[in-house]
């Protein structure tokens, strides 16, 4: 059991070590990298199955019991996120086989890719706040290398903004962790859930705000999102897709964990603020996207907009809202990453990401058009695709708590999302190719299509056979709302009883 829980981190790190030693031998690196990503996916699936049957799993590193050692905790949320990371890792690894140039591979793309996967998995699984910071740093360093690999001018420009914003977030996070340790004497998250209620209210709220800003920068919420649209469109598509799908969601995950397990002393204040942030993030992101005319830039702004929906679910702080936020997050990772991958195929045919220089793809490649429609209309929330159910759950959670203004905002943002997606559809697919643009005769390599088709099928499955996904989301919502089970799994029965006695159970 212990092996299964550390595997999502150890496996990619071991792979990265071997890939570094194989540096320069591209064919072996490619094979190993892709195969390892697939194995990681399989391991993640086994982990989720185990969590689903046995409940929350815990490992104490080095045999030092919590709260003194570092705990790895897999509840349903963590296990689902690790599985999603496995799916995205495999999809991108396959896509990169045809998308990435040999120069970037020689510069160390493959090992860094696996370090990134390890960092993301570590952030999802850790039950220790300082350890979370370490995984954040690991994935930040790996992502910085991947973002600037190739040294193009625009990449470096985007990379500087990305790193500057994220280093500020890391510093804030470290500051917050230091203060939290000073106030409570522990950094184990389950232990913090027990001890934070004893901290004076003012200090607890200050700490909550520091963490809100730190996680918020990483999740790209308003007004801390500027770095995302400035950088995510600059690297090759395979890397953009992984970033756009996965990376900001690590920040959202941290918000979800932090503001359900730790900072719940003054819900009216913290989650009220989150509701405002959610609404403004949605609107600003979608308006930013409406002004863009570059395929990947439109998508980048939509990432920001959709983070708003996830934060909205968190802000409601009900089982339905939290489950909805997670459902939305998973749907969004698949759909968003897929749109990036489709943008890459569109460029393979037409040679550009600029909507002005794209066109005629529907007549040229109907299959690609269908795949685009699935992902894009799912993103816009068209029934019966996955995005519709995702929005429906979050909005229904809004009905329950009667947050009418936020519900209204989210509905109109949905329409504006549709506008952006229609804009891409009209320009790139429906209208004829502009003069001077010669569409490359196809078909594009099957390895580019395979991950796109797989992700589209997942989007369809979440739409047409949504029952199991809902059941899982419901369970996650319940687990997040009442963290007693989390505390029990990490610290044992006595601590759980103390937690309930404190009124921590909800």
């Amino acid at each position, binding site marked *: 059991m212990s*092996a299964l829980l550390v595997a999502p981190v150890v496996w990619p*790190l*071991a792979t*990265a070590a071997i890939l570094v030693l194989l540096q320069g031998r591209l064919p072996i690196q490619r094979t190993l990298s892709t195969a390892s990503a697939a194995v990681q996916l399989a391991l993640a699936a086994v982990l989720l199955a185990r969590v689903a049957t046995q409940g929350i799993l815990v*490992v104490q590193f080095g*045999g030092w019991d919590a709260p003194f050692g570092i705990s790895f905790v897999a509840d349903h949320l963590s296990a689902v996120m690790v599985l999603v990371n496995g799916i995205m890792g495999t999809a991108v690894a396959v896509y990169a086989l045809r998308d990435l140039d040999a120069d970037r591979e020689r510069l160390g793309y493959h090992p860094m890719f696996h370090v990134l996967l390890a960092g993301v998995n570590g952030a999802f699984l850790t039950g220790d706040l300082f350890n979370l910071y370490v995984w954040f740093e690991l994935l930040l360093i790996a992502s910085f290398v991947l973002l600037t690999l190739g040294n193009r001018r625009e990449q470096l420009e985007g990379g500087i903004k990305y790193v500057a914003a994220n280093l500020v977030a890391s510093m804030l996070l470290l500051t917050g962790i230091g203060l939290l340790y000073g106030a409570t004497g522990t950094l184990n998250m389950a232990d913090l859930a027990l001890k934070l209620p004893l901290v004076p209210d003012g200090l607890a709220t200050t700490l909550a705000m520091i963490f809100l800003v730190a996680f918020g920068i990483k999740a790209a919420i308003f007004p801390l999102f500027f770095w995302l649209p400035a950088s995510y469109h600059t690297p090759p598509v395979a890397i953009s897709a992984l970033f756009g799908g996965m990376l900001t969601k690590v920040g959202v995950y941290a918000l979800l964990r932090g503001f359900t397990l730790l900072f719940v002393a003054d819900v009216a204040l913290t989650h009220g603020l989150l509701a405002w942030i959610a609404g403004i993030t949605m609107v600003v992101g979608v308006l930013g996207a409406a002004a863009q005319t570059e395929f990947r830039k439109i998508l980048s702004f939509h990432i920001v907009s959709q983070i708003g929906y996830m934060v909205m679910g968190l802000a409601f702080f009900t089982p339905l809202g939290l489950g909805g936020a997670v459902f939305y997050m998973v749907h969004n990772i698949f759909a968003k990453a897929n749109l990036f991958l489709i943008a890459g195929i569109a460029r393979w045919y037409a040679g550009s990401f600029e909507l002005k220089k794209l066109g005629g793809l529907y007549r040229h490649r109907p299959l690609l058009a269908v795949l685009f429609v699935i992902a894009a209309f799912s993103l816009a929330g068209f029934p019966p695709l996955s995005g519709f159910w995702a929005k429906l759950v979050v909005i229904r959670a809004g009905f329950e708590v009667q947050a009418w203004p936020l519900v209204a905002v989210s509905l109109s943002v949905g329409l504006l999302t549709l506008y952006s997606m229609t804009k891409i559809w009209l320009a790139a697919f429906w209208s004829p190719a502009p003069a001077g643009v010669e569409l490359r005769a196809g078909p594009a390599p099957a390895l580019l299509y395979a991950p796109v088709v797989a992700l589209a099928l997942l989007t369809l499955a979440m739409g047409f056979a949504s029952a199991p996904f809902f059941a899982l989301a419901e369970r996650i919502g319940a687990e997040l709302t009442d963290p007693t089970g989390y505390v029990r799994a990490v610290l044992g029965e006595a601590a759980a009883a103390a937690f309930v006695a404190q009124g921590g159970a909800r």
Partner: protein
Amino acid sequence: MKSLILRTTTRPIIVVLLLISIFLLLRGHDLPGGGFIGGLVAAAAAALYAIAFGADAAARLLRVRPELLVGWGMAATVVAGLLGMLAGREFLTGLWWVIAVGDQELKLSTPLLFDVGVYLVVVGVILRFVLSLEER
């Protein structure tokens, strides 16, 4: 940099720095020190050599490419964690082997292997930076 003073002083200083780096690495488990700081000191020694004698000479002295040090270092840390699991304990559990050498005892352990891994990674990464910058 062709400076007679720098080149002459570099040779003895490097020996001292490398000895200190190994000293720091070995005492790191219970006392201040460890793989990270030891690796930095060793990298500083190599960087000094690269400044005094040029990047090519430093690369020749090192014999292996810095990337390989990173790879082997990462592998060593992962193995150090897995050995605990092979012994039927939790991941990263420290295993100790105490060997009597005369009237002293020599303590070998998986934390030491972990620290050696960190040491190699730090030396490899810093040297990659330094050599790349010196080559410009």
